[in-house]
């Protein structure tokens, strides 16, 4: 069993960090065994949750019913019915359909931030609610590049989707910029570094990069004067080459 399969349990109880979850969901899309296992483990974990019970106050009921009156439910994933019909005569078709739906539904629960309805590729089953960053992390062609920072204290990861021409930067444990300085992001195009945004304060970030990540050959993170620079300084925090895995 490869390592990624072993994440099924942690995934079923929401015990993966954002990056692992995105990787695992990409894996789920192509692994029927894991999809089936995740379904069973989720059902099991919900039994733990089902043992907790708290009488809800009337106010909550009123708020919920008032809120749902303001929006309509999303349509069902369009492709599923057709697939069910077409596959019915095959062996184990329900599972295959369930699996496809699993891949779609797995990402539905990703909430927070901007919610948009996205059509990914031609697959109607994958019409799901995703935030802009989740959209990149979920993209079928997402590539992941990661490196420790130069000081060895943090990590910098870029997940890029060429088809979306977008990339998400994920930092962990990144050192703050010195006083009067800022941390600037760069995308490398033909050996030139083009500004791709700035990092605010804090050690952990998940954000979209500006520019054209789809065609970029690399990513850089440098310390610059607070006003920013048009060319990177030599104060390098991290450097990544987008070489295909």
């Amino acid at each position: 069993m490869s390592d990624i399969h072993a994440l099924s349990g942690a995934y079923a109880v929401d015990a993966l960090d954002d990056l692992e979850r995105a990787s695992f969901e990409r894996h789920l899309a192509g692994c029927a065994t894991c999809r089936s296992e995740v379904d069973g483990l989720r059902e099991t974990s919900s039994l733990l949750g089902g043992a907790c019970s708290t009488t809800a106050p009337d106010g909550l009921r009123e708020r919920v019913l008032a809120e749902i009156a303001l929006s309509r439910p999303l349509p069902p994933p369009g492709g599923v019915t057709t697939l069910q019909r077409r596959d019915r005569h095959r062996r184990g078709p329900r599972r295959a359909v369930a699996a496809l739906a699993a891949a779609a539904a797995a990402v539905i629960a990703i909430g927070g931030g901007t919610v948009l309805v996205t059509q990914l590729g031609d697959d109607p089953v994958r019409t799901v609610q995703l935030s802009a960053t989740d959209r990149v992390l979920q993209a079928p062609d997402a590539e992941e590049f990661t490196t420790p920072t130069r000081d060895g204290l943090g990590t910098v990861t870029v997940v890029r989707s060429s088809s979306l021409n977008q990339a998400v930067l994920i930092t962990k444990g990144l050192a703050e910029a010195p006083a009067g300085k800022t941390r600037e992001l760069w995308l490398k195009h033909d050996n030139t570094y083009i500004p791709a945004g700035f990092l605010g304060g804090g050690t952990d970030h998940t954000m979209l990069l500006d520019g054209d990540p789809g065609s970029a050959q690399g990513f850089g993170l440098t310390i610059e004067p607070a006003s920013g620079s048009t060319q990177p300084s030599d104060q390098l925090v991290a450097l990544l080459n987008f070489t295909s895995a």
Partner: protein
Amino acid sequence: MNDPHPVAGASSRRGEASGALDLAELLRRSGRGDREAFAVLYDAVSARVLGLAVRVVRDPAQAEEVAQEAFMEIWKTSARFDADRGSPLGWMLTIAHRKSVDRVRSAEASTRRDGSYHQQNQPVAHDSTAEAAHASLEAHRVRTALKSLTSIQREALELAYFGGYTHTEVASMLDLPVGTAKTRIRDGLIRLRDMMGVGS
């Protein structure tokens, strides 16, 4: 769950065999925009959804917000519930759990920025599952099944599911070698699944 609400009113199609609500049917009707069906669904599961949110989030006011978010998502995605993949209640609790975990993690991230992370985080989620479990048959079965897990499997599973910790955090909390908590969680869940007779 066996809330005595009948599926009543003009929108009712057919009675339930056992008097128990057909949650799948209520979800299906909700998915077509039937707010009455959703209200019945809410009454049937709100205690479970809020109970789970309170268990994970702890702060009652925040738990209510999380439950509200969860119900909103259940409404929005009700047409996407797939009975081939699991039970209606399981599906709804999965949504509620994910919302709860998102909330504790984001609250924790902001607390950590305030520098008071460690104080806030001291009473680690070691309260046992049994404590919150009700005297219902199902809760009893869950408790019994949990007893069949090794203590590491049980602790890892509880920290992850009720504490909202990542498997990496669970590993360091339980002094497990890096990368083994996920295996304990998975093994524990598989054991529970088999004990509880959950089909997949």
